[in-house]
């Protein structure tokens, strides 16, 4: 990417912060999630949630979903923290905030489709990392949720250019990042990175956003980037993609990301990928339902 692209992206992303739609809870919550698990404070989370009734209500609905492993929906945020753990409640809150974080207009990518992909990827990342007995399943969830945030930046500040890319991807049935590169000269990875840096997200989260289509560029967080990369591909192959047919053959096990992960996690070798895929299919319906609840207020494409 040329220097002038980088400059343009940075300039336009600067403007995003001043947009009014971001819930007040959002940025403090991101900060909380970037701190280490030991520093996490229940009171702080409770205080944040108390500012926003809508988000608190959505949070309880999401926390009650079978996708989050609960048979009974929690009655209060505190109850949710007790049964699900603080970290998970934080990531659920983040999920709810994101649904409201961006302005309604100028959606190029259908928001429902976009959120299904992001939430689906978050779920797969978490489940995947649980299968591998990886340290931080909630971190995996969070990075899965945020990995494509650059598409939102595209919608907001490069909407005309991105519309061309989207149109080409649908017409030629090619991966969206390929179409972005061909028509815009840069992708959602760069625009997402600019926003993530602006928001001062943790380094590994930034690396996932920036390099999930080119894991070899990741310096500090390769296993996490590899995990998100594979989950993203799997979602796109199982009906949680970008809403159009991708003429794409995916060989996950031959993907370099698989080798990176299996070096890190022995359990990967024994994993039954087909069954994992079938289990993802089972979650698709509930992901649709959750997106309708949490992101239902997002207006349709204009």
């Amino acid at each position, binding site marked *: 990417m040329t220097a002038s692209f980088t400059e343009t992206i940075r300039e336009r992303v600067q403007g995003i912060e001043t947009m009014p739609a971001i819930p007040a809870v959002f940025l403090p919550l991101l900060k909380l999630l970037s701190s280490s698990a030991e520093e996490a404070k229940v009171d702080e989370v409770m205080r944040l949630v108390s500012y926003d009734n809508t988000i608190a209500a959505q949070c309880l609905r999401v926390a009650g979903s*079978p*996708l*989050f*492993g*609960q*048979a009974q929906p929690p009655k209060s945020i505190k109850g949710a923290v007790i*049964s*699900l753990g603080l970290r998970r409640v934080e990531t659920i809150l983040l999920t709810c905030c994101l649904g409201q974080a961006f302005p309604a207009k100028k959606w190029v990518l259908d928001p429902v489709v976009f959120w299904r992909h992001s939430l689906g990827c978050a*779920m*797969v990342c978490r*489940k995947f990392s*649980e299968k591998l007995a990886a340290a931080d399943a909630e971190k995996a969830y969070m990075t899965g949720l945020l990995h494509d945030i650059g598409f939102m930046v595209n919608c907001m500040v490069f909407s005309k250019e991105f519309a061309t890319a989207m149109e080409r991807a649908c017409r030629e*049935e090619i991966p969206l990042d390929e179409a972005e590169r061909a028509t815009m000269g840069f992708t959602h990875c760069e625009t997402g990175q600019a926003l993530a840096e602006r928001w001062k997200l943790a380094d590994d989260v930034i690396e996932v956003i920036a390099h999930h289509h080119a894991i070899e560029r990741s310096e500090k967080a390769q296993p996490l980037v590899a995990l998100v990369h594979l989950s993203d*591909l*799997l979602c*796109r*192959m*199982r*009906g949680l*993609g970008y809403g159009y*047919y*991708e*003429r*794409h*053959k*995916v*060989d*996950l*096990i*031959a993907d370099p990301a698989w080798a990176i992960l299996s070096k890190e996690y022995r359990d990967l070798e024994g994993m*039954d*990928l*087909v*069954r*994992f*895929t*079938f*289990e*993802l*299919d*089972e*979650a698709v*319906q*509930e992901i649709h339902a959750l997106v309708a609840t949490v992101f239902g207020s997002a207006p349709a494409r204009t």
Partner: protein
Amino acid sequence: MTIITQTGTLPLASAESGEAVDPVYRQIRDLVYKVSGIYKAEEKLYLLADGCGRRMKQLGARTPRDYWDQLTSQPGRDGELRQLLNEITIGETCLFRSQPQLDALRKVILPEIVAEKTKQITKRLRIWSAGCSTGEESYTLAMNMLEESERLLKGWTVEILATDLNDRSVETAKAGIYGDYALRSTTEYFRRKYFSVVEEKKLQVRPEVKKLIAFSRLNLQDESRMLFTKGMDLIFCCNVLIYFDGASKSKVISHFFSNLNFGGYFFLGTSESLMKLNDQFHLVHFPGTIAYWKPSFKSGKL
């Protein structure tokens, strides 16, 4: 939902009645998967429960737990499992059963094979429907290949070998006469183009479609016949291997591997898995479907 369950057991609900399903069915689902490779997704668990219900009636088993005991204890457990597999795969046979499979075939696989074979003098595509039953899959493939005969497959010869162990199935297949149930997924376009009306509510496949297919009786465990069925580009074997024990299954699969050309593909049923029975095939994902790939010679991935 298996993909997400982390804490506790979730209530199973029947998709139709909304009533809870006995958790024993989840155990049965896992057993069926382990033995046959057929995976009944959570939201389809009521179908498994229905199948078990019919078997229980026959056997006089009072509770799902009683039935579980019959499925898992000698004597007769192998026979009972076979009966159950019959019950749960019944009605899966129809024309155009899996659109994602057909899309992958026409949009991704055919262009790949055509490009690979472009330098060969004889342009010939060979497909094998192994365990063709009453011919639905074979005719679906033939019609789809005919659709490509003026485009991708212009100047190509397509040969479909359709085999089954059962003589009567082969005879029914040859006749190619189908009623509403088998045609429930066949669009008006295909009905008009490739069928003629034979009697009230019955359609017969036209001769130009039949011309592509050679039907015959074949036992997949007949070593000599298996050795001579070479040079295939695509093999479809849907819900057949589920009845084989592990050793025979492995043997048939390694035959299929050598029956395929380099770059060829092997398809199972949509909820069926090869599990860990073969490490030569590459598991590949296409949108909404899975296949097993024999890597092309030059890809160096063997």
